[in-house]
Every structure is written in C-alpha cells, then in structure tokens.
C-alpha cells in the first residue's frame, strides 16, 4: 500500500500517487495505448479527444519510444523507452495551474521549500499538425513537466481549448527520490521481499533495442511498412461511411492507428540514419497529412462532437 504523504520510495509509488491524485480530481484514469508512440500526446485520448466540443478529462501513463535516444542503458537519463504521465482536461479549468501544483505536492514536492517556475515554452508537433502555448515547469531549475493549452490539433482549431500536462516520469521520480542514474532507481518498494530497480527491468531491453534501432532494423522492410500504413490509412478514410448494413461508421480510430504506425516507423528509419535532412521534412509532412485526415474524420463522429442526438 503506497503512503499518501511524505516522500515516495519508488518509481511506481510516484506513478500510483499521480493516478490517485488525478482520479480524486475527477479524471478518468485510462490505461496506456497499446501501440508504439513517441509521446503521450499520440494516445487517441489526447490527440483525437482534444478535438470537438465534448468535455473530456483523462489521465494515464504512456510508455513512449524514441529510438534515436537509445544509449544502451548507459546514460543516466536517456533511454529509447521511457514513461510519460499525461493529463488532458477539456475545457481547460480556470484553476489548472493550482491543480497541477497539487499534483507536485502529492508526489512529495514541498512547494514551500522548492522554487517552482512556469517558463515560456511553446509546444508544436509538426507530425500532428498541432501547436499550443504554455510553459515548461521548472523545479529548482529542472524541467519537470510540460504545460500546454492546445490551440490547434490536426489542423483544426481547438474549441473549447484543452489543457494538457505531460510529466517525464523517470526524470521527475529521480528528482523526488534523489537518484542520479535512472537504472539505479527503485522500481518497487526497496523494502519489498524482491526489490527491483529500474535497471533490473530495463537495462537489458535498452541494450537490445539500442542495437536493433541503430544497427539491425531492416530499413527496406520499415520503408515498406511505412508505405503500407500510409496506404491503409488512406483506404480506411476513403471508404464509404456506411457499412454493408447501412450503418454510418466512420473509422477514425483505425485510420489513426495507421498514422501512429507511420510516425513510429519514421522514427525508426530516422534512428537508422537513412533519412536525409531534405527527406526528413517530406516524411514529417506525409505523417502530418495522415493526422489531419484522421482529425477531419474524427470531428464528423459522435465522440468528435460532429453528430448530435
């Protein structure tokens, strides 16, 4: 049972406290999306649900993969696989800053002893055709979260505006727990019968994926998969909105899955160093085109606020 006050003792306790805190503030605590994504923002609970007029409040952990950041588990705070904690509330509540500061207190950061600052940082995702204004939040000079008011997603103006919070969980937990190397961070309670460190769980996988990402991934196959995902996304969205039984079912989410796939495949190709500077922009543009079409489709659906009654 995790304590709810004092300083947490493990990585998972930081996560559990965040889950408890945001649940107590009325968020639906969702589970991670079951696909490879570069950041928590890619979860349809953020990307798609920030669109349209229907209110939304969700919080979740999202495993995130950035193949180029792999360091074979040797760097103290850089990995190709890590966790983000993501909160999205639409419309953004007037006291979102206070709610956020409450979450820091919940994980043991005493704001009376620390220096918390909101430092300008505008967010933009060229692959999602999205941007917003906000800050990076500093705790004693360290960036612990991103705080963004979404203005546009998938090329659509956000109305109402969502407030998005993204916590880099490893970095935040290392700070709270006073750990210098991520692999040394206790994952479960250090007093548990079988204490496990972050390294016990992830050092080997970091090595394996770093080798695969940088040296082994079959680039011809990845390229083919990229094009397949792109084609399938297009096909899904071009299909008639009515199925054989005459029901109107726009397949925004299956199409968006293909967009997520294309984005991750692009990241893998990038890590393999086979994408030149000029090609880069073209690939990003192709993924963005998919994201925009998915957004266009989503806002015609019921969840997207496009169907009333």
């Amino acid at each position, binding site marked *: 049972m995790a304590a709810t006050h004092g300083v947490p003792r493990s990585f998972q306790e930081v996560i559990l406290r965040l889950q408890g805190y945001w649940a107590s503030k009325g968020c639906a605590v969702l589970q991670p999306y079951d696909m490879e994504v570069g950041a928590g923002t890619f979860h349809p609970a953020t990307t798609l649900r920030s669109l349209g007029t229907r209110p939304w409040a969700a919080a979740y952990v999202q495993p995130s993969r950035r193949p180029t950041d792999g360091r074979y588990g040797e760097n103290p705070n850089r990995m190709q696989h890590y966790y983000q904690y993501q909160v999205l509330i639409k419309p*953004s509540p007037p006291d979102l800053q206070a709610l956020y500061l409450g979450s820091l207190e919940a994980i043991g950061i005493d704001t*009376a*002893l620390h220096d*918390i600052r*909101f430092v300008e940082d*505008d967010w933009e995702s060229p692959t999602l055709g999205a941007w917003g204004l906000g*800050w990076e939040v500093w705790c*004693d000079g360290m960036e612990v979260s991103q705080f963004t008011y979404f203005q546009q997603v998938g090329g659509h103006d956000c109305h109402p*505006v969502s*407030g998005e919070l993204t916590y880099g969980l490893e970095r935040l937990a290392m700070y709270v727990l006073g750990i210098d190397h991520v692999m040394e961070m206790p994952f479960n309670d250090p007093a548990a019968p079988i204490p496990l460190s972050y390294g016990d769980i992830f050092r080997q996988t970091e090595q394996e994926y770093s080798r695969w990402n940088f040296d082994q991934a079959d680039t011809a196959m990845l390229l083919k998969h990229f094009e397949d995902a792109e084609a399938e996304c297009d096909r899904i969205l071009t299909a008639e909105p009515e199925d054989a039984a005459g029901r109107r079912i726009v397949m925004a989410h299956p199409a968006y899955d293909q967009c997520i796939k294309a984005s991750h495949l692009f990241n893998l190709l990038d890590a393999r160093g086979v994408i030149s500077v000029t090609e880069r922009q073209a690939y990003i543009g192709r993924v963005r085109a998919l994201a925009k079409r998915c957004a266009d489709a989503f806002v015609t659906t019921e969840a997207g606020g496009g169907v009333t009654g």
Partner: protein
Amino acid sequence: MPDLLIELFSEEIPARMQPRAREDLKKLMTDGLVEAGLTYGHAEAFSTPRRLVLAIEGLTAESPTLREERRGPRADAPAQAIEGFLRSTGLSRDQLEEREEKKGAMLYAVIERPGRKAPEIVAEVLERTIRAFPWPKAMRWSTGSLRWVRPLHSILCLLTTDAGAEVVPLEVDGIAAGATTRGHRFMAPDAFTVSSFEDYAAKLKAAKVILDPAEREAAIWHEATTQAFAQGCELVEDKGLLTEIAGLVEWPVVLMGGIGEAFLGLPAEVLQTSMKEHQKFFSVRNPKTGRIEKFVTVANRETVDHGATILAGNLKVLSARLSDARFFWENDLRTVKSVGLEGMGAGLSDVTFHNKLGSVADKIARIAALAREIAPLVGAGPDLAAEAARVVKSDLRSEMVGEFPELQGIMGGYYARAEGLPEAVAEACKSHYQPLGPSDEVPAEAVGMAVALADKIDTLAGFWAIDEKPTGSKDPFALRRAALGVIRIAVENGLRFGLAGIAERAIARARPGAPAPAAQRSDMVVAEQVAALHEQHLAETAADAPEGSGAEVAASLLAFFHDRLKVHLRDQGIRHDVIDACLAMPGNDDLALLVKRAEALAAFLATDDGVNLLQGFKRANNILTQAEEKDGVEYSFGADPKFAEDDSERALFAALDAGEAAIAPAMAAENFPAAMAAMAALRAPIDAFFEAVQINTDNQIVRRNRLNLLSRIRTICLQVADLTRLEG
C-alpha cells in the same frame, strides 16, 4: 483630478514579451484616452510574471463638451438639398437654425456633443485595448474566445480621487473589473483589495511582490555582485540575462553556488553558455585564476532553509548539464586528436548548404580557393589562408556546437589550438564569421580577413549565380549583412583590392555545374589532377549557364555592394550625390579607395572653398558644354597664355599650372585631401576670371582660347570625382 490604476492579472507572461507589453499597454491606453478627449499628467507601466500594470496620474474627470456648427443650404433650397443636409447631420428640420446672411436665410446645424465621464471612457478604451492587444503570440483558453498571452484571470481598474476609489465598471469575456488582486503565488496567495496605486504597490510588497521590474533588476544585481564580492569574485555582466530573470520572478532571492572541480577545465564560453541557456545562471569569475568558478541563480521565493534545498537542486541539474558538456568536449578533443580538425569536418559533405550550391564541404572548397586568391591582397600567406579556410567550419560537426550552436567558431579555435595548428588559423575560426552585426568588430588579423572575405564573397557570389537576390524586405540568406561585412572589413582595415575580378571568378566557381576547385594539396596524386581537369572540361562544356554572362552577374553584384555602401555611408552622414560622384570614377570596385575619396570629398564640400569651387566648376562646365554643343567641337586642348587679354586670365593660367603640378602627385599618391586643397587654391583665380572677362567675345581666337582654358578647369576638377553629379 483622479488617478487611474489598471492591473491585468494572468498566468505567467513570457519574460521576453514583458518590456514590449508595458510599452504597448501604456501607448494604447494613453492614446485612446487622449483621443476620447481626456488629458493626463503622467503614465507609467509595470510588469511581473503574472501582471501587466498601468498607473496614470492626473487624469481629467470628464471630456469637454464639444460644439460643432455646420453651415447648410439656403432655407429656401430644394427639398432634396435640405434632406441631404439633415441626413449628414443626423438632425431634423426643426432642430436647424436659420440665420440671415447677405444671400438670404441660411440653414445652420448646431451639434453639441456632451462631455463624457472618465469611467465610461476608461472602460471603453480598456476593453478595446485588451481585445486588440498586440501580443507576439496570443491564445484562447477554456470555452472563451478572448485572446491573451496566457489565461487572463482578473482585471483591476480603479479611479482614485481624494473622495475615495471607484471601480470602473467593465466586463471583458465574463471577467468583471474589480479592486482586488493577489500576492506572490506561493508566499502570499490570498486576494486583497486596494484603493490607490500607492496602496497597491505597498500591499504588493507586503505580499512578496516587487512591482517595478527596474527595482527587481537593481535588487538582483546588487545582491549578486555583493555575494560574489564577498567571496573575492566578480559577476560576469549580462544585461539581457538580468532583464530576462527580472521577468521570471516576483520576489527575487539570489543564491550563489560553486561549480564542481571536475568542470573547471571546460572553456569559459562553454560554462557560460551552458549555465545561461539551460539554467539562466549568471557566471562568476575568480579574478585570481581568471576562471569561471561559481554561479548565481535567482529563485522566486524565500524558504525556511534559506534556499538550501533550491540551491542543492540547481547544483544537481547543473552537474548533469556540465557532465553532458564535458562529455562533448572530451569526445571532440578525441576526434581532433585522431583525425584533426579538418577530419572532424569530414561530414560536412553530407550537410546541404543550399540545394543549388552544394554541400557545406563544397562551399569550403570554394572558400579555400578564394581565400588563396585574396590572401596576397590583404597581407596573408596564401597557403595559410587556404589551410584556415579548410578547417574554420569543421566545428559545425563537433558535438559541442551541435548542442550549443552559438559556440560555432569559438570551439573551432579551441580545437585548432589543441591540434597545434598555427595561431592565425585558430583565430580565423572565430573571426571569419565577423562582423556578426553592425556593432561587432571586424577581423583584425590578415588570415582571418582573407577567410572572412572569401566566405562572405562566396556566399554572395553563389546566390547571385543562382539568381536568389534579396528583394524588398526579404533577405532570407542575410546577403545584405554579408555585403556590409565585406565593406566593413575592407574599409576598416584599409584593404585595397578590386572586387570585380574576384567576384567574377567566385561566381564562376559557384555556378551550378562548375567544377569543384582542385584541393591544392601536396599529397594529391597526378592521376587525380588529370581526372579533375578532365571533369572540369566536361563540366565547362556541359554547364548550362544561368542567364547573363559571368561579367553581367558580377556587375549586378558590384551594384549591390555599391547600394550597401551608400546605405552604410549615408548612416555616417555622407550625402548620396557625393557617393555617386565618387562611384562614377574608375576603380570603383575598390571599396576602401571609394570610401577614402568620398570622405575627402564630403569634407571638402563642407568648407566654403569647396562650395565655391564647385560653383566655379559648374559655371565653367555649363558654359563649356553649351559652347561645345553649339559649335559641335570639343574644346579640350591648346589654351595658350599668349592670347590672354586680361590680368585675371593670366593669373588663372598661372594658378592652373601650379594646381596641376600640385594635384598630379597628390592624386598619384591617392592623397585626396591634398589634391582637393590644391583645387581649393583655384577658387579665387576662377572667381576673379569670371568676374573680369566675358567668355563668348566676338574675337573667335580669344573665345576659343578661353573655352580651352575652361576645359583645363574641368579636367583638373574631374580628376578627383565626377563633380557634375553633385547637387546644389
């Protein structure tokens, strides 16, 4: 008279936007109030991260009643005309006055606009200001449609008189103005009510908010320098950083810490840049060692442990950052040790400079060839200049510059020294980028000058070769700055060379399809040279030349240099016609010569002698030109003193003889002031000559002789500059 206080309270305003926002708030409000008929004594704007504030003293309580009288048509004018007048005034017929005038009864409209009370005007102007505020980037939030830099939470708008304070009734997107605000986010978060600006500023201070950014800056600077001094150190001044930090805190608390021993060996620029860019720390230097050994950070609150936790956290982040920096530094040094600085830049062949102008490596090869050509003209060794050109951009591939692009050139210098390259090469790594702006220095060493000129001329030549010239306000490749750089390097170092030939050859090298300049290196084998020559031949025959011959493109580039030179000299107070007069002379592609001539001419024209001589020249030139046009001949030779009739005429012959004798050697020595001083001596004889004689006399021999004499005046004067282009 009431005082006005406005506070727009929001979530954190980016520090960099605050100075401009203060100005905008003040201007939009005071302009709007004045336009609506109010006047005021004094206005001042303030900001903190969470508030934008305007205080106006001595605002008038209401705008004056305005009375406007308009004369209309005659009382018995056609109905249509009267109706038109009624429409334009918004009055009815019975509201018009009739006045008897000479022409008969005329209609008059007297429109009275009653004065309005200050609160009504303030509310109107403030709402307009908020809705149209020119933030560089604004946003919506929640369900609203209002745009502000970050969510706007409250508006305080108060008119204060001796009788008391009054809230100005105002509502913008559901936010109603009031008399309350809040203190520091963490140290005094409660709301409180204020009654005047003095009350507001005092209560804010009690609530741990210093309103005035200048006061915060002063407090930070004073405390930081004091703490550094107490440790026998000195703070590295950084005004931009100070202003930024003052925009990030409401209650500055200065904390000083030491940099770990392990990082003290890093170059000072690396420490400073890393601490400033990532952490917004000031650097603290130990004057005894000359090293950056400590830092100052500014927190936004007091704590019971006197900042111990905050400082410890900051130190931890700093260590992580500097570990990265040391990792880059050590890797880079290892690279330089194994493959040299030139080897470090090998990957630049994969970096595109411009898709029509090849890779950065291609550009470097062109710069090396050009630097070799320019070197003898600026007193540098050609081999050394070419060697420098090949390595000055290598650090673009270093890990350190990858992390901190602003350290380009500086790191190259460190790595060149680590490799043991000549000091002139190490210097050129940084100086070849100079001047970076109008206030930056130009390179002072010959090798740096050669490479800086080569780099900039190649950039210009390249974009001219592919016809990507700056147009209007569009100059995406900063070509104007490059041209000004070339001008300043040449002029400020007094470098003498003709630009036209250099530019033409640079354009030929940069043209798409041109052969890559042969890397003139001793280890290049003959077979490679033969192959390169063969390729060059193929390229020359195959290259599809862009429009215009090389000479035409070079002429266009030279004209661009002349335009930039005009702008540059105009900023220094030299008239455009003076520059035109000098541009018309031969050798106008020698920028330093051009400037020398223009400066001498401008100085000469600032004297009485100069102005009068110019008049004398113009008179002589006009008479001569008219006579030449009329007679269809050129009077250019053979004035003979024996045909002189008047003493003044003989005196002028003597003066011209003396003048020519003095001017010729001065011109040969390019001593323009001396040549112009000698010309000035001609002023009196010329004036006296025009006074005494008539040029167009009936005696054709005398007339011809005098015209030929005028021709001598013209020839002498035109030696220094084309004076016909001067105005006045």
